[in-house]
Structures are given as C-alpha cells and as structure tokens.
C-alpha cells in the first residue's frame, strides 16, 4: 500500500508534527512517500530524507508555494495523490498531521478528489477503520472509510513521533504548477517565544478566567520557567481578552497531552477538558473546591492562585 504523507514546514525546517503523522501512517502500510511543497525548501527535503522508513521524498518547489496558500497547495496534493507512484501503484491514503495548516488544506484536497476526509483520528483499527473523537471528546466514533483514496488527518498527541534520523530516502523533484492567484499572502504575526510549543511540550501550565487579567499570566511564567513548560489558556480567558487565541487549549483550540498539565483558575468546562484530558498527570489549582476540574485531576489543590503560584515557583 502506497501512502502519501503531506509534510508541514516553513521552507527551512520540517515541523515536528509531521513525525507523528508518519508514525500513524506506518500503522497502515510501509510504503511511505513524503510530499514537500514550498519555495527554496531544499533543506527541508534533506531533513525529510533522513527520516527512517521513507521510500521517496517528493519535492514541488516554486515561488507560488512560498506561503503555502490552500488553493494552490491543495491542487498539487490532489494531483499527486490521484496519480501513481512507483510500480504503478496508486496511493491508498493521504496523511497529514491535524495542524491549522492541514485543517485549512486537506479538506480542499479531499473535495477535489471527491472523497471524504476523516479528521483528527486518534487510533487506527485497520487500513480503512479509524477512531476519532466527536462532541468535544465526549464520544468516540469508530468509522470506516468507503473511499478508494482515504484522506486522513492525525491528532498528533495520539501518536508518538518517529525518529528523524537514520534514513536515506531518494529525493525527487516534481514540476507541478498551480498558480491560481485566488488568494495572496499579506503578512504573518507569529508569537515569538522561548518556550516549547504547546502541542509538543512535556509540561503545560494553563490559566483560566480566575487569572483575573492578562498581566497576571506572568505569574504562570515563574512556574513555566522552572519546568520548561508551555503556557496555555482556557477559552474563557481568551474570550475575556486576557491572552491571544493561539494559547487556547480546548475543543476549539489546541489539543494537548503532555506528561504534566497544570490547570490554574480553570473551572473545567467540557470544551476545555476536550483539549487536555489525555494528559498523563493533571494538576488543578482553584479556589473553588466544587470546580469540575477537580473531578479529572490527579492532584487537586484548593487555594488562591495568587498565593500558590509564587510559592510553587519558589519551591520548584
């Protein structure tokens, strides 16, 4: 079975999320092809070729793919995905990690191929049967794909990353042009942080409405510094304007599953739990002992976060 895996990168570095998607793909088959679409992305190709177990790295390089706009990209992926790889075999699956980038692009690929997309899978039962969370993780659906080509996005927290070294795949340049001029990149405003990324961090500390305001989030930093943790927030904190949306953990934000998740001043709404309940150890700090977050926490501490956080930062 030939599987096409769409990589995510910034034209110079492969994003670690892709390594999780590759792992998921290995559970389906072992003939893996990596696709890199971008501009001046030779370095990414070299990096990708070192990943173990890859047959070939396909590279489509042109200035019109510099900003990875969905309209151009989806046409490239659909054309390659519908075509033939080595030995005249047709791709049976197209995999990608369920990042905001893939969420933007992959459904467009699926529609171009007239097939469904199975979003955000958490487990693989067989080559055509997968599990995914629905209703904010309050139910798990087992679904079977009836399509010849299966377009699948993978929840990265549900699959470990494969090793990014030891392999020696062939790199093949392809010349495919889709410069549709439908959308145009203007600017990007990325949060610059020394901290690990939320979805990959081993420790995450998140603040909720109980933080009171945006400035108080600096209290989380003291603890985060000691634990090399990423900082997250509940939707309530984002809605209240304390912090930006890219910090949101939950059904409508990011799904995280670190070794340690510390929820501070978070009541534990269903939609927040959906984003963190697969964490290995959950700690809840809240002054309301009735807060629902305590019902999912391994360790609960009832107390005022303005006392607890400085003390915690000091002891650690």
């Amino acid at each position, binding site marked *: 079975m030939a599987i096409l895996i769409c990589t995510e990168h910034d034209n110079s570095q492969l994003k670690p999320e892709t390594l999780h998607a590759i792992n998921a793909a290995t559970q389906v088959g072992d003939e893996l092809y990596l696709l890199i679409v971008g501009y001046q992305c030779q370095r990414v190709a070299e990096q990708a070729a070192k990943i173990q177990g890859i047959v070939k790295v396909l590279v489509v390089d042109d200035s019109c793919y510099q900003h990875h706009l969905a309209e151009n990209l989806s046409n490239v992926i659909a054309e390659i995905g519908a075509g033939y790889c080595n030995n005249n075999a047709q791709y049976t699956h197209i995999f990608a990690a369920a990042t905001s980038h893939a969420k933007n*692009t992959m459904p467009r690929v699926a529609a171009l191929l*007239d097939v469904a997309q199975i979003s955000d899978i958490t487990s693989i039962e067989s080559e055509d049967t997968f599990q995914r969370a629905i209703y904010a993780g309050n139910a798990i659906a087992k679904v079977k794909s009836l399509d010849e080509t299966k377009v699948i996005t993978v929840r990265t927290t549900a699959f470990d990353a494969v090793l990014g070294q030891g392999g020696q795949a062939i790199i093949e340049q392809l010349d495919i042009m889709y410069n549709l001029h439908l959308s145009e990149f203007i600017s990007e405003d990325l949060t610059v942080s020394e901290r690990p990324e939320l979805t990959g961090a081993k420790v995450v500390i998140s603040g909720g409405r109980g933080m009171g305001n945006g400035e108080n989030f600096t209290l989380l930093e003291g603890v985060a510094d000691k634990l090399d943790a990423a900082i997250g927030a509940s939707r309530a904190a*984002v809605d209240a304007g304390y912090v930006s949306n890219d910090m*949101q953990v939950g059904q409508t934000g990011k799904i995280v599953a670190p070794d340690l998740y510390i929820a501070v001043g978070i009541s534990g709404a269903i939609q927040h739990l959906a984003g963190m309940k697969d964490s290995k150890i959950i*700690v809840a700090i809240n002054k309301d002992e009735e807060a629902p977050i305590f019902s999912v926490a391994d*360790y609960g501490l009832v107390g005022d976060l303005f006392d607890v956080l400085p003390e915690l930062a000091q002891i650690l």
Partner: protein
Amino acid sequence: MKILVAVKRVIDFNLKVRVKPDNSDVDLTNVKMALNPFCEIAVEEAVRLKESGVASEIIVVSVGSKPCQEQLRTALALGVDRGIHIETEDNHESLNIAKLLAKVVEQEQSELVILGKQSIDSDNNQTGQMLAALLGFSQGTFASKVEQKNNKLIVTREIDGGLQTIALTLPAVVTSDLRLNEPRYASLPNIMKAKRKPIDVTTPEKLDVKLKSHIQQLSVSAPTERTAGVMVNSVQELVDKLKNEAKVI
C-alpha cells in the same frame, strides 16, 4: 454583494452528550438543540457586513430535517433577509453538505459564503474548505477579522502560533473562528419580524445533487472517564507528589 451563510442545528453547547446503550450513536432524544456557536458567529459577521454597506442581501441555508427551520428562524431574527431549507435526513457527511451548498451558491450567484469553522457535534472542520474547492473559490478559514478593501476581502486568520493575513479574490468562502465577533441577542421585535420572513424549502433531488456515502459509522462509545485523584493540602505536598509519586518533574 450577496452573502450566503450556512448554518447547522446541533446540541446546545452547554449540554453534555450521552452515548446510547447499544453504542450505535449519541442519544439526542429530548435534548435541547441550538444554532452551532460558530455558525452564530458567521451569521453575525454577515449582518455586520450588511450594516456597514458591504453586503446587499443575506441568505441563510441549512441542510437537514424539518426542525432545522428553527435555527433558520434564529438567523432571520438576527438580521438575515431570507432562508433556504434543504430538506433531507440529518447528519449528512461534510462532502455531501458542501455539494448541496455549492448548488445553492451557483443558483443565488452569491459572491461570499460564510460558515462556522466547525460544528460542535461532528468536530470535522471541513465543509467550508470543501465548498471552496467545489466552487473553485478562494478561502479564508478560521477568520478573526474580515474587511473589504477595493475588490478584495482582507482576512486575518488564526493559525498555529499566531495570525496570518491574506487577501482573497472574490468570490470567496470564509469560515469563522471564535474571536471574529460577539454575536448579538435577537430582540423581541426582530424575533416577531423573523416569523414573516420567507423560507424556501427545497430538496437534494430538486437541486439535482446526487449524495453518496463515503463513511460508515460503525459504533459510538463513551470515552474512558478519568477519575478524580487526591486533594493535597499544600504546595509542598503537591511538589512532593509530582516528584516522588507521579515522577513527572
């Protein structure tokens, strides 16, 4: 500009869904239903674009059984001009919904389609992107800001790690993220007025769209519940437990 907004009837977001004992699906009997929160944001954005003079008319569409007309009325009460109900069974797959919507967009010649980025039941996050693909439209997904400049639509998008701003050539599909706006409440006079606004009913057959099943749902089960752990009495005790018991720090 004529705007089309697609909306979905889903379980009220405050409610926790239960799985049927036979694991065939979730149990939605006698459960309060509502407009999907992201769809509500989409409706609000369309109404604001009309208020600012960018849009001339707003049409709301929903696909499903008869009760989804309640959600169409909700949208009409928020300021939408008229509704289209595509009557068919509930819970069609995203691709089928996109195909039905594409037909309506072609018939209505709308230049902008706004949808919620995902529904809180199936959590797929697909329909808008699929619709854009079928129509060959540009797309601005997970929008937190939308404005018209010359003949372009400037969309700020929520992406991993921050924001991205792109310019879309019209016609376009936009999907709403949380921070796009804060939806208004419908006033009583507007709710009354909405009752007299027209809702056209059509069917997949009348639209000449053939629906096909691509996914079979084999079962639905409840997730393994986490159980509550222990309460600690001090920060010191917490740190000790994390170090020595859980061994995560």
